[in-house]
């Protein structure tokens, strides 16, 4: 009897320990570090209260990076939640099932390729004499050609576009699975009652896959907050800092300038933002119930 009751706790312990040591412990140490002026080269640490946070909020780079993260989140939400639900629904309603399998695979494939490779691939596409500009030339849209990643107005949007290309297929797959779980009787009943396709989509499909929409929203928002690889590979925050996000300025401050304390402060801001966004998720869930 006793054994049976202890057993579950014993099973939890290893996972819990790993979590404590590699996740929670660093988080708390990081909060401590963010109040220090810590020089990487000499290893000297000095307690400076909120100086790191104050200089972060006053800096120009924080404003740009924060704006870019928000842009990332909004655009990703539109594509990876909004448009991919529509795609999923269309593919599930196609007359020719084989064709829908083909499309599904085509959309899903990019999410299987490593981000590093995608980043390099798209630097070639976006080059001044790259694929995108060549296509524009062929279509007699030569006026629109430019160095996409080297222009401060287009750099961040070019990178966000790559992310959408990569991830929309992934969330679409999640929605397809959810849609397939909807009992066919419900759809048939709606059909008999004379519901149009649009009405079925709005009043049956969407409410029944609401949980999946929530999960995708969480994935998309946290992805937009933590984005790093694409930017690091394609522009490294350039040109002149116009495509920096919070994680790239954190990285640069920590490992290029050697300001560990300041970088820790940025990390905590990212952590706090993640908390706020996930809290919003929970609040909406509560109100639904």
């Amino acid at each position: 009897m006793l054994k049976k009751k202890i057993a579950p706790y014993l099973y939890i312990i290893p996972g819990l320990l790993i979590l404590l040591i590699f996740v929670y412990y660093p988080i708390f140490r990081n909060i401590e570090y963010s109040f220090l002026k810590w020089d990487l080269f000499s290893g000297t640490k000095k307690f400076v209260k909120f100086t790191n946070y104050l200089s972060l909020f006053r800096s120009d780079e924080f404003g740009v990076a924060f704006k870019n993260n928000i842009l990332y989140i909004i655009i990703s939400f539109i594509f990876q939640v909004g448009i991919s639900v529509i795609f999923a629904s269309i593919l599930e309603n196609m007359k020719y099932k084989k064709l829908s399998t083909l499309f599904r695979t085509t959309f899903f494939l990019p999410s299987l390729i490593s981000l590093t490779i995608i980043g390099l691939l798209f630097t070639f596409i976006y080059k001044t004499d790259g694929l995108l500009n060549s296509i524009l030339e062929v279509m007699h849209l030569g006026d629109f050609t430019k160095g996409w990643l080297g222009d401060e107005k287009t750099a961040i949007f070019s990178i966000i576009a790559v992310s959408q290309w990569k991830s929309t297929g992934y969330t679409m797959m999640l929605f397809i699975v959810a849609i397939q779980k909807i009992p066919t009787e419900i759809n048939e009943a709606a059909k008999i009652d004379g519901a149009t396709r649009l009405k079925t989509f709005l009043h049956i499909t969407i409410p029944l896959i609401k949980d999946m929409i929530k999960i995708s929203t969480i994935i998309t928002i946290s992805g937009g907050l933590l984005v790093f690889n694409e930017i690091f590979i394609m522009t490294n925050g350039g040109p002149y800092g116009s495509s920096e996000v919070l994680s790239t300025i954190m990285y640069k401050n920590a490992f290029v300038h050697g300001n560990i304390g300041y970088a820790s402060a940025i990390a905590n801001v990212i952590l706090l933002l993640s908390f706020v966004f996930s809290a919003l998720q929970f609040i909406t869930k509560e109100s639904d119930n």
Partner: protein
Amino acid sequence: MKKILKGFSVIVTIMLVMGLLGACGKKTDTSQTSDTSESNTDTKDVASEPIEIEMFTRFADGASKDFFDKVAADYTSKNPNVKVVVTSADNENYKQEINVRLASNDAPDIYFAWSAVYAKNFVDGGRALDLTSYINDDKEWSDKIMTSQFGPYTFNNNIYGIPIIMDGKTFYYNKDIFNELGLEVPENWDEFMTVLDTLSKTDYIPISLGNIDDWATGHYITTLNQRVVPADVLQKDYNLDGDFSDAAYVEALEYLNQLVPYFTPEFNSVSYDTGINDFITGKAAIYYEQFNQVQYIEPAEFEWSWFDFPDIEGAKGDQNALTGAPQGFMVSAETKYPEECVAFLKYLTTPEVAGQMVKDTMMISTVDGAINETTANENLIKIADTIKQASSINVWLDNSTDSEVVSIYLSGIQAMVGGSKTPQEVMADVQKMVQTVKNSK
């Protein structure tokens, strides 16, 4: 019963956590004590089994990696009691990896270091061994290394690094294009502008430039600052004793702006590789590049040569200094085997080994006599002479001053040549950052 169980699980959890943390703490303790005991025995008697010294380099691929691996193996076979282990990380990653290793007290015994402020950071942090006495005690060895190259490793009159390769930035030009258009090598700025004007009327790109990483235009400003800004002002400002308020800085930026129409179109989106490729495929006539990259110019199928950055007449700076800092190795202040480390660096800078480096890698050795007819081609010998004749060495802007000032300066320059900032705005941002950095120190 439930409460007991709950209490039990909590206790087990806590015990396990404490145990793990305790184990972590203990491990560092033992390693520290074993360190001291080891170093004690080392100072008392020569270790019977081979000692291991680690050399961390930025030469992660190609001929240069092969060379350092080979030298380490050769050295070990000649000195069986010392085993040299070479580890490496490529250029960009090197800067971060060495920082992390130093911060986690896992310093390699010998490590690569760019000169000037880059090296100074290690010295100020107490991470680099003072090599002055070793250099003074063995004049026979150290006199063979070009004296001027020790300069950027000297801080407070002490030398902290052994320069291995030297460098310089120059305008490579396509002789075929110059002959075709009847152009002469420009001696001063006005002549340079005339040459560029002529080139811009043809299909050739006058100057090839890939500036997606902002240091490429930063190198132009390195040279322009030194030509235009009085040397003492420049020195004071780079040391952060000044405030970059001299009007000459703006002037230097304006000179760079004059070149903008002649660079590769959309150069802020063009990668470094494209910049070099446009030159060696004959699309561009002129290319500003380091001497140490000459192995990438070599494949060009046309006749090429190089000319110095043109003099700016009437400007207040030094017209003869050469832009280009040496690169070399430093010894960790925490190493257990300083003698052995220096001995290996001496081996690396003997004329024979340095000559082999020139032969294998085409890097320009700082060692006298390493570059000769048997190790290098005609071009490389001429390059070595050019560097020897320079009045002084002008360190890259990237390494010349505090990294945050550099960062804002370089991206400001990139914004200016891209047309979104004026020279005055760039300098205003730099001055603001200098103030911020000074305040935080």
